[in-house]
């Protein structure tokens, strides 16, 4: 199962203009990720983790090389096609949760389903299912400012998972959490990966996250330094 590549990059390069010169954030990355992998991009700041995550999440495009996500070439997608890919197949989890502050827990989790035009009944069923996964069914009417950091991140996970995406991209998901909450969150994600076979790709330099990863891809100066599978 893990042999089917959901993510594949070939000589992936990303160059940003910097003043009069250029800065190469990614220098010819070759990478394959199969279905159900629980992998992480590990490296210090400036190593290219977030840039790679952005490209794989179709939020940015490569300067050179190829990035195929679920068979679709990111560089060739129109803005509309990229939005469709994100909407249907990719879930995002952010360091700072990025919940919609004026909406309730229920509405935050419901939002991706609204974009997918699910009916009200289907939405209710899926939202409650996702909130059950993260143990927040008793907080559906609360708003993010009324929740703890750990609860917010659980809502973010439920929002990412509610549409059962093929890939979840998580950028430093535990950076704002304490050790107990971090482990809870990581256990939830590991369980989802285990049971739903969703591919998880993290960008992190947090040891707690690294401890949960089944595959560790170390980045250094925009290149893969090491790729270790447990």
């Amino acid at each position, binding site marked *: 199962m893990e042999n089917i590549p959901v993510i594949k990059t070939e000589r992936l390069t990303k160059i940003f203009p910097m003043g009069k010169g250029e800065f190469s954030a990614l220098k010819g990355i070759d990478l394959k990720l199969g279905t159900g992998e629980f992998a992480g991009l590990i490296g210090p700041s400036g190593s290219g983790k977030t840039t790679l995550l*952005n490209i794989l999440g179709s939020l*940015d495009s490569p300067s050179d090389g190829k990035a195929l996500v679920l068979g679709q070439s990111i560089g060739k997608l129109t803005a509309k096609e990229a939005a469709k890919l994100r909407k249907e197949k990719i879930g995002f989890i952010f360091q700072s949760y*990025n919940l919609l502050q004026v909406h309730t827990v229920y509405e935050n989790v419901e939002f991706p389903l*609204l974009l997918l035009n699910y009916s009200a009944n289907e939405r209710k069923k899926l939202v409650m299912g996702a909130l059950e996964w993260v143990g927040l069914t008793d907080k559906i009417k609360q708003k993010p400012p009324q929740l703890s950091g750990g609860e917010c991140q659980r809502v973010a996970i439920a929002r990412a998972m509610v549409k059962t995406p093929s890939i979840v991209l998580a950028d430093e998901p535990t950076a704002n959490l304490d050790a107990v909450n971090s482990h809870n969150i990581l256990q939830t994600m590991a369980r989802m990966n285990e049971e739903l076979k969703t591919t998880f790709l993290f960008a992190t330099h947090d040891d707690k996250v690294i401890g949960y990863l089944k595959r560790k891809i170390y980045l250094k100066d925009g290149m893969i330094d090491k790729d270790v599978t447990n």
Partner: protein
Amino acid sequence: MIRFLLKGLIRDKSRSLLPLIVVAIGVTLVVFARGYINGIMVDMIEQTARFNTGHVKVTTKAYADNINQAPNDLAILDASNLILKLEDTFPDIDWACRIKFGGLIDVPDEQGETKSQGPAMGIGLDLFSTGSKEALRLNLAKSLVRGNLPTKEGEILLSEDFSQKLGVNSGDMVTLIGSTMGGSMAFYNFSVAGTVRFGNTGLDRGTVIADIRDIQLALDMTDAVGEIIGFFPGGYYNDELAEIVMAKSEKLFVGETGEYSPVMLRLRDQEGLSLYVDLTKSMGTIITFIFMLAMSLVLWNAGLLGGLRRYGEIGVRIAIGEEKGHVYRSMVLESVMVGVAGTIIGTSTGLFLSWLMQTYGLDISEFTKNATTGIMMPNLVRSRITPPDFYIGFIPGVVSTVIGTMLSGIGIYKRKTAQLFKELEA
């Protein structure tokens, strides 16, 4: 989805309440300013029309050429025939004969010697005929300070300030010393029926009013009048109607030549009123445009600030898969909702303030007491609510809000997705 957006809009006060207040204030100002300026300008025009120009005026050509001097030696002769002709041709217009005259008012003592004397500007108008609207038009009954309106021949009204200057009370005799139509000296005794205050500094300075028949007798103007003025139905000057009436009058007077032949003047042709008439007509557009521009700039900035504050929300919506165009359209839709709500509130508030101003007015007599223009400035300025005031606010209210949002939204729309994502993570 719309319900979801609406919930967000209502709950996020900085997205709804703040722009709503900005729009409501802006629209209130537009509606109030429009009503206020319209009121002032129309009042000025109508006050001038009532006392001086009429909406249209018929005089002789020679009189018209020297109209500022009110030259009664060039007055209309055979006036009763001309007015019949005018009434026949323009039955909807209310025609009235007037004689303007200048002279001295002399107040005698018990021995018949001059006690006091002062220069006066007089108006002779029809005070006694059944159906004459002249007393009503000049609001004489309400302007009365002492005494009564003239009820019989030989009575005269003096402005209150003038009567105080001369030391005259109602019932006292005064003598008008003037010049007859033929250029001889004219002396005519009047009994002071009462005093009036017009609320206009120029008129209150030294105006006297008497029935036109008395003035015709006094100035030897049998069946002669200085001017025949006409007032449009509805009570307000209408430039388009004036144009039609004047064109028709040219046909009516065709063949009449010479300096005593009648000629019609529109209100805009007199006392330099054309600029005011044009301004009144375009004032709504000018005010709306100025406010629209100002409000667009304010709302653009408010939109930009709001947009910057909403980077997080917009970034996450795009990351989750919402299309940029959809985000942009939803922002515009929000601005339409805010614009409409703000306009309704602003229009209601503006109309209420205008109504207060229309009902109670604002006393500006301190500013107008030294006015010397031919245009009569009323001492009490009032707003005037007209039908466009009920909908004019929608232009700056909705259009500016939407333009402001569209301009600020373009900045977000044009940003690269990854850039938004980065800002979102920052």
